[in-house]
């Protein structure tokens, strides 16, 4: 009798658990820490797109997500402190706007996920090791990155039509960029690419001088291509 009561009780409570768990899940509010290199007014309209994208996945600000904004107003040095503060607040994820913001977030945590909204060449700046497999706690979007080297090579040809031999400086971390750039190049025959595979970044200045004697242009894809923020 007692045993049956116990079973009933257990059954009853077990049946009730999923409901409780669901209710707890629904009540859980995710916290996004938003680290902006500039000011709210500068990106307000684009921030609406961010909110729309979240809504598409069922996340509505004020209902099941909270966004803690920190704006550095262009004073990038403050980003480090803001990033540390957001990590202390135990946000579930950090969203970053601007390369300096992403670098500060990466410095603040190796565990909290980071999504970068607009960051410059994420491979050249060392934010991720590869675009296809970011590897650590950072993903998001970038521009002027390795796969764009095919495009930048095209721009190079446009800007310097007389260039016929282009030296490509490679280090291990830039290898992917060139492998991608070669087959995509719009001028595969017009441009002779010279590989310089054993170059180390530290020695690049010296080596690029010696390379120039062999070629009309020196192109080091990732390091030189990240000309924008």
């Amino acid at each position, binding site marked *: 009798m007692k045993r049956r009561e116990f079973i009933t009780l257990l059954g009853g409570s077990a049946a009730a658990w999923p409901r409780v768990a669901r209710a707890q899940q629904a009540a859980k509010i*995710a916290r996004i820490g938003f680290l902006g290199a*500039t*000011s709210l*007014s*500068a*990106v307000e309209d*684009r921030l609406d*797109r*961010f*909110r*729309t*994208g*979240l809504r*598409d*996945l*069922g996340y509505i600000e004020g209902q099941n*997500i909270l966004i803690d904004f920190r704006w550095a107003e*262009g004073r*990038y040095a403050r980003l480090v402190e803001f990033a540390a503060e957001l990590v202390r607040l135990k946000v579930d*994820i950090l969203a970053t*706007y601007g*390369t*300096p*913001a992403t670098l500060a977030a990466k410095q603040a945590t190796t565990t909290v*996920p980071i*999504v970068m*909204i*607009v960051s*410059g060449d*994420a491979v*050249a*700046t060392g934010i991720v090791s590869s*675009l*296809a497999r*970011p*590897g*650590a*706690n950072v*993903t*998001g*979007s*970038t*521009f*002027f*990155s390795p*796969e764009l080297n095919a*495009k930048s090579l095209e*721009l*190079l040809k*446009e*800007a*310097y039509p007389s260039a016929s031999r282009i030296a490509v400086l490679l280090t291990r971390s830039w290898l992917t960029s060139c492998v991608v750039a070669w087959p995509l190049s719009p001028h595969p025959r017009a441009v002779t690419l010279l590989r310089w595979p054993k170059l180390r970044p530290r020695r690049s200045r010296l080596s690029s001088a010696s390379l120039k004697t062999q070629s009309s242009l*020196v*192109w080091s894809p990732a*390091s*030189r291509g*990240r*000309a*924008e*923020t």
Partner: protein
Amino acid sequence: MGELTAKRLALLHELVPKAVRIAVLVNPASIQATDATLRDLPEVARATGLQIQVLKASTRSEIEAAFATLVRDRAEALYVGGDTFFQSRRVQFVTLAASSRIPASYPTREAVEAGGLMSYGTDRVDMWRQVAAYTGQVLKGAKPADLPVVQSTKFELVINTQTARALGLEIPPTLLARADEVIE
């Protein structure tokens, strides 16, 4: 070679062929971008025959001071370097460029939409929504390490003809034809 720097300068030169003295404004606080631009400039200047004057600014008052300098030194065109802070100050840039009567090239289209003369760069607006989708996926349990970094790959040339008119510039038809967007 700084192919993007070179390309942007070439486009600016095409739009304002008479301009030889070009002021280049960079933000030293944006170390990566500024290093790249400054490293590329001497070579670009040599190749194009343009005289480059480098100006630096990290605050709104320094932007103001930079414009005073370029007016004093009679720069004929302005190249605005890539920087998030500069982007946020686009209205200030556009206002100062108009009052200084200087043709300016910007890295992103937002400045041209605000009244800037021209821009050449990648379109980044869509990235906001895409990254929001990633944010949602990570909140639902996806690992950042497994989500490939997405890229904006589309370069666009945007020209504001109204601003060109105000500056008394005639846009070469060949350049206008290549523009991805013309703001009237």
